[in-house]
């Protein structure tokens, strides 16, 4: 029963550097809302029992209480405004391109199209649309503990790039490139579902993120681009 009420326990494992910050905010809100909920519910139930209709007892004639109303208005405002201010840095860190950590270990263009994710690697020259570009369907390979930059776009409708374990979600829009970053902290394979309704094949639109250890990633690269000396797949 308690497991049902313990929301944070249901979060999937976090494997990104900024995911911990998201989870901490989640837990903070979980406690704030749980306390507020319990406070209201206990008061409600106590009132319902204590002030139920009883023969010979009449209700009070109370129109309000200005002091009390000011107190709970200001208290609520302070809590929610404080929460918003407290959360802003986390938002900026994840979503503001100007605050992205530089020197990425991999740069990949992710293209949503009905109903697949196309991953394009710029290749060793770091340039898009050259001969050494590599295009993979639904397979995203990145190194562990390195910053990864994603150029997100779509060919047709809006898709949403979602990796639950990275705590990352960003819509992919046709006609726009949206930059996203993450740094995975644990090697493994993770699913990349599409989180925005994109047509009759929406359910099952699924890619895979493979986070490699450093050696594995080098091996994967040299397997893909055997002729070139790989110096990290960098852009510009």
């Amino acid at each position, binding site marked *: 029963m308690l497991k049902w009420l313990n929301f944070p326990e249901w979060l999937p494992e976090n494997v990104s550097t900024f995911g911990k910050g998201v989870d901490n905010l989640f837990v903070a809100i979980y406690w704030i*809302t749980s306390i507020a909920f319990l406070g209201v519910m206990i008061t409600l139930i106590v009132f319902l029992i204590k002030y139920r209709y009883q023969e010979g007892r009449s209700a009070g004639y109370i129109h*309000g209480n200005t002091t009390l109303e000011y107190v709970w208005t200001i208290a609520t405002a302070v809590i929610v405004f404080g929460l918003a201010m407290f959360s802003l840095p986390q938002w900026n860190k994840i979503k503001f391109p100007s605050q992205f950590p530089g020197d990425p270990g991999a740069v990949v263009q992710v293209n949503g199209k*009905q109903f697949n994710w196309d991953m394009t690697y710029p290749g060793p020259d770091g340039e898009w649309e050259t001969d050494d570009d590599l295009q993979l369907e639904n397979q995203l390979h990145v190194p562990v503990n390195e910053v990864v930059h994603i150029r997100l776009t779509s060919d047709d409708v809006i898709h949403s790039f*979602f990796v639950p374990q990275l705590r990352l*979600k960003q819509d992919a829009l046709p006609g726009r490139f949206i930059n996203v970053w993450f740094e995975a902290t644990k090697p493994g394979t993770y699913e990349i579902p599409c989180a925005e309704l994109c047509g009759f*094949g929406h359910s099952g639109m699924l890619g895979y993120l493979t986070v490699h250890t450093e050696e594995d990633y080098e091996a994967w690269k040299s397997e893909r681009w055997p002729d070139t000396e790989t110096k990290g797949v960098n852009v510009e």
Partner: protein
Amino acid sequence: MNEHTQESHDHHHEESFVRKYIFSLDHKTIGKQFLIFGLIMFIVGGGLALLFRWQLAWPDRPLPIIGASQTYLEEGEVETAADRKWEERYDDDKDSWLETNMPSGIIDPNFYNSLFTMHATIMVFFVVVPLLVGAFGNFLIPLMIGTRDMAFPVLNMLSFWSNMLGTIIMIAGFFVPGGHAAAGWTGYAPLSSVPELSGVDWGQNLWCISLIVMGISSLMGSINYITTIINMRAPGMTWFRLPLAIWALFIVAILLLLAFPVVASALGLILFDRLAGTSFFSAEGGGDALLWQHLFWFFAHPEVYILILPGMGMASEMLPVFSRKPIFGYKSMVYAMIAIAFLSWIVWGHHMFQSGMNPALGMAFMTTTMLIAVPSAIKTFNWLGTLYRASIRFTVPMLNTLAFVSMFVIGGLSGIYMANSPVDIYIHDTYYIVAHIHYVVFGGSVFAIFGGVFYWFPKMFGRHMNEILGKIHFWISFIAFNGVFFPMHIIGVGGHMRRISNPTQYEFLQHMQWINVLITMFAFVLGAAQILLLINVFWSMFRGKVAEQNPWQATTLEWQAPTPVPHGNFGAIPHVYHGPYEYSVPGAESDWIPQTQPNGESLPDEPVPAGAAAD
């Protein structure tokens, strides 16, 4: 004006059946028409939900009854039949409607999308708005402000019948080739604006046209409500003596009036894109997909408050009656509703945190959205304050009102998670938001409707609904509601995306599939319980216990009118002497003093401002 109306109503004439029951100009009949319409559509919308809940619990298994189709019986094996249908999906010669949408009784993915699209569309535009704004708005406004009818009775009738026209267009969408709209009730472009991308042809067009017609219907209603409330209040009915339900409906009418034109133009742009070859929402033609989201949510966020504010108003009517106590903080309740209405215009971006709009906007919208918690909290605390030192009667309307308050608390608090943009990165477009919206609109608005129907039924139909049946319906609904929607928070936290038809396709969702089964089982119980409501409503209309004039001993004006309410509502227009919630006044003879009773010594003297009355 009053004298004139008085005179015209004194000459009673027999009305034809058509004029009395079908094309009626009487606000009460129009209210009842909306009520019956809304309840029927409630069953339709709920039925659609049960279909897709089956698919979510037991993906790609044939539906009961429908699943025993000829193909299934002949081939005996489901997969092959389904695969064949999948290959044939673009062929023109389909067997039948059933075989197209549910081949072998299995819900086709596109039909699945239509189902949840239409579930939401019907519930929002054809159930909750018609019930709260159409039924209760029409019935209550003239009665509660003490006038004889709406300002524009013909407009009022047109409002209902254009609503019916919109319904026919919307239902027709199910039966056109290509199926009904399948882009979600939010209709995100370009999925909705380019036919090739969804495979939906006229379904989406009819969806747009129907919503425009429905919007026109709402506009006619809202113009009527605003005019009536401003101009036709009974003498002495000052703004701060208005019942809170009227305040809520007044604010909602203003929101409707301002919000609807925005979405109407957006829907028009979609139609242009689809039919005239423009590209407002297509990047390759120079358009922008995000334009639709901005226009839509600029309308749809106020729309969400349109769905909840009348429920808040109605709860604020029932709570004092069954607490036998004045509402706590009347004025702060009014200001809170005005604040919610104002804030609703500057928070639409919180639906778009992950949409690709400039992240700097995310900061602004997070802050404004968080602020909505303030007026919401004020209202909740005031409801609690009303219960303090009350004398609570646990009648059916009161039980539903208490459910409204507590479920709204959950819905409000769960909203804080999404309002917080970093947390929203993870839970956006998961079942967490599905849980949230249902706690607000079902747990909130629909329980307020259940309570409101039971509470005002004696005034509407002159008969009581059955108390025992009402309690059984309430408890089953309340428990099953929580059984359906509380676990959605949990699978949402687990990352379960909304709008997917087959969760078993995803490795990371496998361990939660049993919760989907549980939700579906509760959903069937919840659906079945609504049959009790329908039986209670329609049986009581003809066979219920005959009601007296003021069975709940309430103070507001509608209960001072005779039952059944005659054409023209009141014998003489009542005069209002004080606020609407004078219960348990010390020294008074009874524990309620109607608004029409002049101030005795027991009530503090309140001057009646000149010019406040209708003239």
